[in-house]
């Protein structure tokens, strides 16, 4: 058997971690760029190979039509669900999409679990390169508020990668586990988790028993479409509007320029977490530079609606746990978006206590997943997670109403039995519609599955079929039926309302092997080439700038020689050589970058290397 890892499959970034046997502490594994964050971006090369992570993120600017980010927003959803997302995100949905969304990358079509599988495979490669051993099993985290279809889609992504998913763990629960290991916390803990695209709040009770520590989730709530992305969207819309007013340039909200603006604004947002003011300098195609001075106060006012939207779920989770804000012994902040000072302040004021931020908010979920993975693997337990189902499970009854059979916040696994009979003589089928959600009418809840119970012909009311609905420890529904008169077990073919069936997964797994066969070195070459493309383009652009006239002849010759050397290395397959030449060119263009930095046109380049422009 191979190694086991914990994976945080995030909206913006994904991470892989393992439990270091020497220290007994979980640790994140860095990728080829040295960072533990793998941007959740996937790009399909014209030659058919797939690029994931940092290299793909750069392609958002150069090949947006072949590149996708934030695919987590599409997991487990149908085309009708995502109309709002389409206004804000550059998803290219294939018109053939029926129950399952299909996304276009270049001329190929993929489902969201397939795209997520590319990210999982990348992380597995990172881990395998780190261990020098195969990795075949994983614990993957999901937002606590993910519904059945979203969880199933995540599990499918694991299957497509060929990974055995031992458990789906809720992100805030994983974070609590990581903090518990780190700080030996006890008592009642609130975990406020605002990620790139999802928001969760979980209320836990940490109990020490003679057997070990128990992490019992009392309640959870959230919004699977609320996160840092929404803050970026607000910023982008705000600046887009300003540019329209002042400079009368309109640009497509999803094009390259919009991506560049988004990137610049994310930098501004990050700067405002550290300082009170930050300046956006954005060079536009008409040669002008759009300049806007942001203050933290103005940013706060802009993002206040996002922060306010998190507080409804927070209050509901506390009410469901029958607790008050001041009952909490600890408050933990998770997710990159919680670096925002307004969010920290709001949470602190609400709970009346300083929140924990000791662990890196980007890494803490992956660390918890690694700890859980190790527990499951060893079978020797020092702790136990008792999690809950975030949404009530119901079945449709007369008149389109919903009868709740497993209430939200039930500890999982949880089950409910329902007895069914026939209404007319010789009726051979009973239709059952399973739903998830809190609303009273079926049309307002999430449809999970429809199926027909087969019944042998008999007088009305005589058949007695017991249907068992079970939510397993991953938060995923299983259905079984028993004929109480004969004792026969019925096998039920449950067709999920929004999902892919097993044979499709099988096919996707086969197809993914084609992609997986590129070995590590090959991918390194692709990434190095991508990087050299962008640095070569940036150098050509910079040399065309009038400021470059100030370069000495010697400097210019050195740059040109480095460019030629890099070009030559790119035609080969030695990624180490390409990287070396990239470094040399970076070095040769240092003065050029400085010159540009002093010019008005390049104000937006401040503090960055030429290659990153």
């Amino acid at each position, binding site marked *: 058997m191979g190694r086991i890892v914990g994976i945080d499959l995030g909206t913006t970034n994904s991470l892989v971690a393992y439990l270091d046997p020497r220290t007994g502490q979980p640790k994140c594994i860095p990728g080829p760029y040295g960072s533990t964050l793998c941007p959740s971006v996937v790009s399909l090369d014209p030659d058919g190979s797939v690029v994931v992570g940092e290299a793909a993120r750069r392609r958002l600017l150069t090949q947006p039509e072949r590149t996708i980010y934030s695919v987590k927003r599409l997991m487990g959803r149908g085309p009708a669900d995502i109309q709002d997302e389409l206004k804000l995100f550059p998803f290219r949905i294939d018109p053939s999409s029926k129950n399952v969304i299909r996304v276009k990358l270049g001329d190929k079509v993929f489902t969201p679990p397939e795209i997520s599988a590319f990210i999982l495979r990348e992380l597995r490669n990172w881990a395998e390169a780190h261990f020098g051993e195969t990795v075949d099993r994983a614990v993957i985290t999901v937002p606590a508020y993910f519904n059945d279809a979203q969880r199933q889609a995540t599990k499918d992504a694991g299957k497509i990668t060929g990974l055995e998913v031992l458990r789906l763990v809720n992100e805030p629960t994983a974070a609590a586990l990581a903090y518990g290991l780190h700080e030996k916390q006890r008592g009642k803990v609130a975990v406020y988790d605002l990620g790139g695209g999802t928001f969760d709040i979980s209320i836990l009770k940490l109990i020490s028993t003679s057997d070990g520590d128990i992490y019992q989730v009392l309640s959870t709530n959230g919004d699977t479409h609320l996160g840092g992305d929404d803050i970026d969207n607000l910023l982008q819309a705000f600046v887009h509007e300003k540019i329209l007013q002042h400079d009368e340039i309109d640009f497509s909200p999803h094009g390259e320029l919009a991506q560049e603006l988004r990137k610049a604004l994310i930098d501004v947002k990050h700067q405002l977490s550290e300082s009170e003011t930050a300046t956006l300098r954005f060079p536009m195609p008409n040669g002008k530079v759009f300049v806007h001075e942001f203050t933290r106060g103005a940013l706060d006012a802009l993002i206040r609606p996002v922060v306010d939207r998190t507080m409804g779920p927070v209050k509901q989770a506390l009410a469901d746990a029958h607790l008050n804000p001041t009952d909490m012994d600890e408050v933990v902040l998770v997710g990159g978006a919680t670096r925002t000072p307004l969010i920290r302040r709001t949470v602190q004021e609400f709970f009346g206590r300083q929140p924990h931020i000791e662990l890196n908010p980007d890494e803490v979920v992956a660390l918890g997943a690694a700890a859980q993975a190790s*527990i499951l693997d060893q079978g020797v337990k020092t702790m136990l997670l008792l999690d809950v189902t975030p949404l009530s499970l119901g079945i449709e*009854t007369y008149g389109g109403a919903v009868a709740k059979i497993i209430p939200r916040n039930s500890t999982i*696994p949880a089950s409910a039995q329902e*007895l069914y*009979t026939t209404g007319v003589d010789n009726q051979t089928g009973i*239709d059952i519609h399973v739903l998830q959600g809190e609303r009273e009418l079926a049309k307002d809840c999430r449809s999970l599955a429809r199926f027909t119970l087969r019944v042998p012909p008999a007088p009305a009311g005589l058949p007695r079929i017991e249907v068992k609905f*079970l939510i397993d420890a991953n938060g995923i529904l299983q259905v079984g039926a028993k004929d109480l008169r004969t004792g026969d077990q019925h096998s039920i073919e449950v067709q999920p309302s929004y999902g892919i069936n097993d044979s499709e997964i099988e096919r996707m797994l086969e197809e993914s092997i084609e992609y997986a066969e590129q070995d590590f070195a090959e991918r390194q070459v692709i990434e190095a080439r991508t990087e050299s493309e962008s640095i070569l383009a940036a150098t050509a652009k910079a040399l065309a700038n009038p400021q470059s006239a100030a370069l000495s002849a010697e400097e210019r010759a050195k740059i040109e020689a480095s460019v030629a050397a890099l070009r030559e290395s790119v035609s080969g397959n030695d990624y180490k050589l390409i990287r070396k030449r990239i470094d040399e060119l970076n070095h040769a263009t240092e003065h050029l970058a400085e010159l540009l930095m002093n010019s008005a046109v390049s104000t937006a380049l401040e503090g960055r290397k030429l290659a990153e422009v």
Partner: protein
Amino acid sequence: MSTAPKSTTQSKTIDYFAIFGLPRKLWIEMGELEQKFLQMSWKLHPDNFVNASEEERDLSLKRSSELNDAYRTLRDPVGRVEYLLGIEGVRKEGEHKQQAPPELLEEVFELNESLDELREAKTSGGDLAALKSRLESAEKNFQEKLGEVDAQLQTAAHEWDAALQADSATRKKVMAKLNELLNRRSYIKNLVANVQKELL
């Protein structure tokens, strides 16, 4: 879809009280129940059986879900009474009478009138403030009644515990009383929920 009529026969084969080794009494010491729940979770949870045979995994899933179902049911004082009456064969699952208890008839009638007026005022734009305050005081009144029913339910629960070894006629009498109180409780709760919905 063609709707699925639910059979009225009970099929509960698992005794939630027995899972915790408890007699079918309605008074349960919550701290003890929690301790037992945690101890048993530690043994039965599927996390312990990830590398076990499929058979063992299935059994763990079944037993741990039953444990969780049992804890969820018994922890809730009202759910506990409903469950008890269910396994004793007195109460059908999901049963709640929609008839108003006779002594509440007049107040319920008034309440429904006020609700109709409020709905009408909402569509035609009449004076909402006065109606709302009338409904708010009615809600408070019914909340108090709910408190009374809960107190009565508690008294009846003690009677049940005392009658645990008594003859079946006595036990049936207490169960009938508990059942009637549950019906009244769910009726009033429904009323309150309806008022709250309109006041939102």
